[in-house]
């Protein structure tokens, strides 16, 4: 392979990462922020977001693409937190309680999500996205009407003045940063939430271990080719459901970790963009719809959030309005997802064309792609 082709392949593979690094580095000087401040923010946001982004890995291994359905798990986590605040359970005990309340809800929602996705094979991403909207309606109904009317809420401070339904914003003061503050390391002027990072590290170890188990191998086989996996005796549908259930449960825990760090909960829309930002982060880290690793998660969270930290101030300095930076944040998030999907489709077509070319032999001349993916579970919406 020539050096030019190698460079071209490298650029096409890491285009999103390269573009992102360039934009972020270029935005640092106009933002006027110190490197120390940016690094501290990245450390905080790594602890806050990494768990949620790690929840996306297993469905990618199982060939189900980026799990936008993780929003369902986030809703389950929020329900758990509402109950923890209602019963006045504070500190890490409140977080464990929220997790224990959210866990069965997450399992149920994950199972429903898996069943639906099995009926929409090849279109898992858009199905998950729309399913999240549907379940959001049920969540709104539950939180707005059921809590306080059907399910009694003892803590009147969190209930709307009409007597039922939860207030728009919940103060999570009782559990605020209770996980982060168990052990807060101070190293070279940086604050590192040790326990949060230990939990994230344990999840990474779990993912590595899980990939080596029978179920993990089955998931990878299903992700490679469902037909081959089926003929090899792997219960394809069951394996896919398990992948989604694990992802939803991890999203539930991830949302609890996220919200304890933030310290308040926007009851009706905190989960709205959970999936969106997690997906954007893993794509920025160099993952694709079919391929992701733990390294992609951390690189993605660091890059995306470095951009989030610097962009509002850079926008303010360059254009005289911080809102430009806020718009930029949204634009970058959606732009990254769109760019990754386009690049994925382009690479799939290119691979198909190259495969045809190698079958025909060099004499046949260059082949023109017809847009069909080569094999496997490509072409997810």
């Amino acid at each position, binding site marked *: 392979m020539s050096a030019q082709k190698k460079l071209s392949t490298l650029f096409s593979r890491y285009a999103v990462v390269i573009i992102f690094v360039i934009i972020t580095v270029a935005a640092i000087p106009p933002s006027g922020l110190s490197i120390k401040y940016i690094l501290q923010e990245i450390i905080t946001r790594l602890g806050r977001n990494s768990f949620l982004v790690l929840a996306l890995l297993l469905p990618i291994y199982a060939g189900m693409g980026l799990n936008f359905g993780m929003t369902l798990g986030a809703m389950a986590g929020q329900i758990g937190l509402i109950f923890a605040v209602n019963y006045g*359970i*504070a500190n890490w005990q409140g977080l464990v309680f929220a997790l224990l*309340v959210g866990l069965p809800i997450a399992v149920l929602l994950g199972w429903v999500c898996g069943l639906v996705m099995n009926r929409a094979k090849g279109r898992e991403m858009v199905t998950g996205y729309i399913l999240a909207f549907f379940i959001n309606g049920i969540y709104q109904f539950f939180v707005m009407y059921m809590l306080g009317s059907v399910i009694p809420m003892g803590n009147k401070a969190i209930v709307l003045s009409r007597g039922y339904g939860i207030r728009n914003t919940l103060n999570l003061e009782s559990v605020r940063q209770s996980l982060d503050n168990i052990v807060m390391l101070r190293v070279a002027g940086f604050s590192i939430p040790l326990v949060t990072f230990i939990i994230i590290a344990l999840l990474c170890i779990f993912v590595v271990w899980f990939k080596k188990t029978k179920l993990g191998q089955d998931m990878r086989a299903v992700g490679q080719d469902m037909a081959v996996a089926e003929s090899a005796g792997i219960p394809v549908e069951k394996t896919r459901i398990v992948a989604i259930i694990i992802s939803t449960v991890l999203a539930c825990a991830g949302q609890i970790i996220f919200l304890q760090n933030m310290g308040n909960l926007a009851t009706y829309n*905190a989960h709205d*963009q959970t999936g969106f*930002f997690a997906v954007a982060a893993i794509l920025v880290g160099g993952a694709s719809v079919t391929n992701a690793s733990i390294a992609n998660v951390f690189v993605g969270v660091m890059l995306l959030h470095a951009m989030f930290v610097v962009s509002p101030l850079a926008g303010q300095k360059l254009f005289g309005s911080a809102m430009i930076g806020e718009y930029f944040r949204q634009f970058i998030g959606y732009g990254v997802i769109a760019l990754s999907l386009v690049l994925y489709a382009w690479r799939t077509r290119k691979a198909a064309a190259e495969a045809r070319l190698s079958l025909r032999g060099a004499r046949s001349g260059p082949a023109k792609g017809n847009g069909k993916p080569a094999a496997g579970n490509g072409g997810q919406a």
Partner: protein
Amino acid sequence: MNDTITAKSAPQSKTRRRLVQGGLLVVYILIMVLMIFTGRRHTILIDNKDAADGSYSAINGMEVSVDKQESAEYYPGDRDRALVQGQRHTIQVTIFDGNTSIEKTFTVPLWSDMMIISVPKMAAGLEPWIEPFTMAEQIEEAQESGPPAGEMSFQSMGGGAPEETEETLPSP
């Protein structure tokens, strides 16, 4: 032969699986209950006021700490609060006059949000020095007994309750 063994062991393994599942469910619920018992937060109001019937009088300067939290100074008419977690707690009182110390252990009922400790009552050895505190009852009592005396001050009352705000969340 093998078939017979498999046929016998199948219901056994099913029973064992059910037992394990049931055991896990019990452990799950037990952890939940444990979290409620150890994690439930209560507000303790520490009161240094005279009795309405004159049976005891406010302490003229003291330092109080609950569960080795940061101590606070109290003078006659003061009332402050401490947030505690769990049910069993210790209160330490150091009275400035004579430099005497009192240490008492008390238990807060699980579902009681707010309790009030009358330190003068406790120091006088009168029971009960710890009672449940309900805001509605206090308002009723205050309305019945008229406006509070001029020297009485509420450093802090209740609080900690989330307020309804419409502000947007910090960015993720």
